């Protein structure tokens, strides 16, 4: 049984089909990458599978149960959580309290939740900024808080929406290290990403979305040599010359 499975998920906005009959599955322990050109429907797909939008057709199953129509907070209780591309730290809370809100997901008692929050803070490398307010953080700090909040809910599966966007190359390296540690902690992840270095380094498997459809699936290596993927990213003329530079 897959940890997570989306079957023929379709989402339309009026006449526009943003996500069209996408099949998608994640096994326990994997890191699955989700890529695609701008406007491919990645974020919509994310919103649908995380419970923030209802699919028009298809089913989304987590741990064997359908989660369609459940509230995101319910889904989070079951062990699946997401981050936002446009990060949403609680601006008037300290970093500790931001993470604490997440830690309360499985710990009613403030003392235990606090302990959990401290653990996560160390794992993500936010220890030095514990007392800063959400709104005082740099982009890199916000991205880490976003990740830490999600992690503090103790998810089995974490959906990360562009946690690298807006980071400098050295910050990206730092974040990759953090995600490596998260993986070691036993969290399965789905990552949407534009930074290819990240996707290629971390993913076990990659899905490629284009015009709302999953056009390819496979290992990072097989994806980079897939003509359909190259066509989607670079246009038809490049496919004829496979020796050309890849998009970065």
């Amino acid at each position, binding site marked *: 049984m897959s940890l997570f499975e989306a079957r023929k998920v379709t989402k339309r906005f009026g006449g526009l089909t943003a996500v069209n009959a996408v099949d998608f599955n994640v096994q326990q322990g994997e890191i699955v990458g989700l890529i695609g050109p701008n406007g491919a429907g990645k974020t919509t797909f994310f919103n649908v599978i995380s419970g923030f939008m209802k699919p028009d057709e298809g089913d989304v199953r987590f741990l064997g149960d359908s989660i369609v129509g459940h509230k995101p907070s319910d889904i989070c209780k079951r062990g699946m959580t997401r981050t*936002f591309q446009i990060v949403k730290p*609680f601006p008037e809370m300290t970093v500790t309290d931001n993470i604490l809100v997440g830690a309360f997901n499985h710990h009613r008692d403030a003392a235990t939740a606090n302990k959990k929050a401290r653990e996560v803070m160390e794992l993500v490398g936010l220890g030095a900024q514990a007392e800063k307010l959400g709104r005082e953080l740099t982009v890199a700090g916000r991205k880490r808080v976003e990740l830490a909040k999600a992690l503090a809910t103790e998810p089995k599966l974490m959906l990360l929406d562009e946690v690298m966007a807006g980071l400098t190359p050295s910050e990206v390296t730092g974040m990759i290290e953090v995600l490596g540690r998260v993986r070691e902690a036993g969290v399965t992840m789905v990552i949407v990403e534009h930074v290819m270095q990240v996707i290629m380094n971390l993913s076990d498997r990659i899905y490629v979305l284009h015009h709302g459809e999953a056009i390819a699936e496979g290992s990072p290596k097989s994806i980079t040599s897939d003509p359909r993927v190259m066509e989607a990213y670079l246009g038809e003329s490049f496919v004829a010359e496979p020796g050309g530079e890849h998009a970065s």
Partner: protein
Amino acid sequence: MIRLRDHWFYLVVLAGLIVLPLFTDSDFVTAVMPSGLSGSALLHVFILMFFFAFMSQSWNIIGGFAGQLSIGHAAFFGIGAYTSTICYIHLGLSPWLGMFVAAGFTAMIGAGLGLISFHYGLRGPFFTLVTVAFAEITRLILLHWNFVGAANGILLPYSRDAGFWDFQFNGKEPYYYIALVMMLCSIALVAWVARSRFGYYLHAIRQDEDAAEAVGVPTKRCKIQAIALSAALAGLGGTFYAQYTQYIVPDDMVVGRVSVEILLGTVIGGAGTIMGPIVGAFILISVGEATRVIFEGGGTGISLTTLIQSDVGLAEKFSGYLAYLAGGGGGGLAVLLYGVLLIAVVLGMPGGVLPWLTRKRKSFAKSDKKGDS
């Protein structure tokens, strides 16, 4: 852990408030009070402060912590007052018990209002409009429902041998202590909420509902719980008001002015903080009562047209206007000052007086430390 050392200021104030009624008739108090004001008037001012602090604290839970701006709390307050009063008059139920019936009833109404609003995803100004409409509907029902006295309201039956169980007392002192205890209980409740998971969840909801939902906060349920708790407290306040004034009438209670006065204390003092509503209510009542005392009588009997047409200098005219607002306009000057105060706080101390003071103290402590090293 709450360390008493950190709260010495509040403890000193509290000790003062506990012993205050013992000294209201002393020569000292009579000497410093403005002429014509008795010790019992002083107690009345403090009862008002405690009462409004309590009401502001009630609003603080939904408006401050959860960030759902209600401009309809006068309705919960009014319904609470009517519920316990009707239980008392028609069922002979002691208001001491009636106030909890009232709280239960207003909590249910609050939860119902929350259920409808939040089920349809009403946020921000749309929720606020629902609360305004709800208060107005409540007022109209009370105003036209003969069973509850319609526009005449209800005059509570006064009895010379009313005892403790009737929640009726001769002097002001019992009311003073009841109001004080109610205020302290509301502080304790909110302090507990602030440290609990529920409190963190409400703060998270106020700042970003989607982000809260994503990390497992059941936003709808929390908001409904918050409005129910808040409404229950407002209901308790309603019973106290009914027993203290012995007269309840829709056009005095369930009106926008009262809803605004309830929330103003919290907004000025510091919404979403534990002591903010108390500080804010104390400031507001002090300002309101001070203007009333200072300008008392000056404007009564003068009509505005006489004032405008009268043949006096500009300065005199201006002071005449002030007096008119204060006296003839039914405490209008106080409302004017509330407005000025609100603007000053919003512009100069965003977040409220108390958070501003805390920040000042922190930066002071920091510069102090730097000076030492």
